[in-house]
C-alpha cells in the first residue's frame, strides 16, 4: 500500500516547481500585456491593412494548440531567426505571444467601451491622437480591463503546465511524477491544488489591490 509518508519527502521537489510556474506565468503575462495592448491600440486606431495583418497574428496564436506553438517556436522559428533560446525562455515567449493575442481582445473591448464622446472632447481641447490615447483612453481602458485581466492570469497559470513539452518542470509535471513514484493519486494533486490556489489567490489579490487603488467612483461599479 502506498504510504502517505512517502509523499512528504517529495514536497520540496514539488514546491520547487512553483519557481518555474511563476516565471512562466509572470513572464508570459508581462510580454502578453505589451503585445496585447499594442495590438489593441492598432486594432482600435490603426489602418485597415495593419489591422488585417494583426488579425492573422491573433487568429494564428488563438487557433494553434499551445503544444504545437511550443514545438514550432523552439525547434523551428527561433532557431531560424538565429535566436538560441532555452526551453524556459521559449516557453515564456510563446506563452506571452499567445496571451498577447487573447489580451488584445480584452484591451480592444475596454478601449471600445470608452465612449466616443470623450475622444471628441479630447480632440476639441486640442489633444493629438497620441495624447488622447495616453491621457484619456488608456487610463480608463486599463481600469476597465482589470477584471478580465485577472481571468487571463488564471488561464495562463493553467496553460503553463503544457510547457513540460519542452522539459520545463513546472508544478503539474512534478506532481504527475510524484503520483507515479508514490502510487498516490489524490494527495499529490491535492497538494498541487493548494499551490495553485495560493498562486491564484495571491495573483487575484494583487489585482484586487490594483483595482481598488485605481477605482474611480461611478466608473467601474457596473463592470464587476
Amino acid at each position: 500500500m502506498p504510504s502517505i509518508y512517502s509523499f512528504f519527502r517529495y514536497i520540496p521537489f514539488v514546491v520547487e516547481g512553483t519557481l518555474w510556474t511563476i516565471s512562466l506565468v509572470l513572464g508570459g503575462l508581462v510580454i502578453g500585456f505589451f503585445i496585447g495592448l499594442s495590438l489593441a491600440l492598432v486594432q482600435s486606431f490603426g489602418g485597415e491593412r495593419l489591422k488585417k495583418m494583426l488579425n492573422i497574428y491573433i487568429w494564428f496564436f488563438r487557433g494553434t494548440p499551445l503544444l504545437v506553438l511550443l514545438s514550432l517556436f523552439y525547434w523551428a522559428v527561433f532557431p531560424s531567426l538565429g535566436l538560441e533560446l532555452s526551453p524556459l525562455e521559449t516557453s515564456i515567449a510563446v506563452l506571452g505571444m499567445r496571451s498577447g493575442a487573447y489580451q488584445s481582445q480584452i484591451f480592444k473591448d475596454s478601449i471600445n467601451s470608452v465612449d466616443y464622446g470623450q475622444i471628441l472632447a479630447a480632440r476639441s481641447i486640442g489633444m493629438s491622437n497620441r495624447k488622447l490615447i495616453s491621457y484619456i483612453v488608456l487610463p480608463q481602458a486599463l481600469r476597465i480591463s482589470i477584471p478580465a485581466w485577472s481571468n487571463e492570469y488564471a488561464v495562463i497559470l493553467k496553460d503553463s503546465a503544457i510547457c513540460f513539452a519542452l522539459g520545463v518542470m513546472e508544478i503539474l509535471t512534478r506532481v504527475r511524477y510524484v503520483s507515479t513514484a508514490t502510487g498516490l493519486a489524490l494527495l499529490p494533486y491535492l497538494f498541487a491544488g493548494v499551490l495553485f490556489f495560493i498562486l491564484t489567490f495571491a495573483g487575484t489579490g494583487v489585482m484586487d489591490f490594483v483595482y481598488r487603488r485605481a477605482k474611480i467612483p461611478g466608473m467601474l461599479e457596473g463592470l464587476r
Partner: protein
Amino acid sequence: MGKILAFLLLGIVIGLAAGYLLVSSVTAPSQNKCLYEAGKFSGVPKKGEQVVVVYGFDANYPPFTVMQPNGTPIGFDVDVVNMIAKKYGWKIIYKPWDWSTIVTALEKGDLDIIASGMTITSARSQKIWFSIPYYSYVHQIVARRNDTRSLSKILNSGDYIAVQSGSTADEWADRLLKAGYKFKKLGLGSYTSALKALLDGRASAFITDSAFLGPYLKKNPDIENKVKVLGNLGAPYNYAIATRPQDKWLRDKINAALEELMDNPKWNELLKKWGLG
C-alpha cells in the same frame, strides 16, 4: 492618475526584472543548453575529453523510470544507463522531458539518448535509431478477479476498457476496436491511473504491458489479489535505448556495453531488483 499609471508601470518593470532574474537564476543550474551539432557522437571523441551524455526520460513509468524526492530518477532503465556510463567513464545529465515531444527533442539535440521504456516501433525507427533491445514484454488484458466473464464477452460487452493514452496499449485498443469488438476505450494519463480505473469499476478491463504489470503487482500484492490476466495480445515488444541516427559511435558503445551486461549474471539480479525477473 499619473500616480496610478506610474504605479502600474513600476509594477510591470519590477515584474519584468523579477521574471528575468528568475529566468536567469533558474536557467543556470538545471537547464544546461543542449545546442550540440548533429553528429555529436558520430566519431571517436578526442583523447582525454569528458563525454557528456544528456539522458532524456519521462519519469512516469515504474519500474523503468521513477522520480526521486531529490529530483533525480531511479529505475531499471536508469540503472542500465548508469552502468553503461560507469563502464566508459561518461558523465550523465538527467533531463526529464515530456513523452509527447521526446523524440523531437532527441532528434534536435536537446537530448542524446532516451532510455525510458521506449518500445521499438517502425514509425520511431524512421527518425531515431535504437540500440539492441534490453527488455521484451507482451501486451496483456486484465480484468477484476471477481469478474467471471470470458475475454470475448468483456470485449463485446460495450463496457469501458482503460488504457494509457498514446501508449502501445492504446494502439492495441484501437486495433481491437477496428477488428469489430464492441467496447468503449477509456484513455487515461498513466498506466497506474488506468489500473485504478479498473479497480474502481470505472472500467471492466485494462490493457497494459507485462513490463508494467508484473513489477507493479509484485510491489502491491493487495492489488494482485483483485485482478487477473485474461490473456496476451500479439507478439512481444522490445525496449531499447534510442539515439540519433548519426551518432554511430555512441550507439556502438551502448550496444557493446548492453551485450556485456546482459551476458553477466548480474543482469538477472538487476531484473529481480526491479521486479522484472
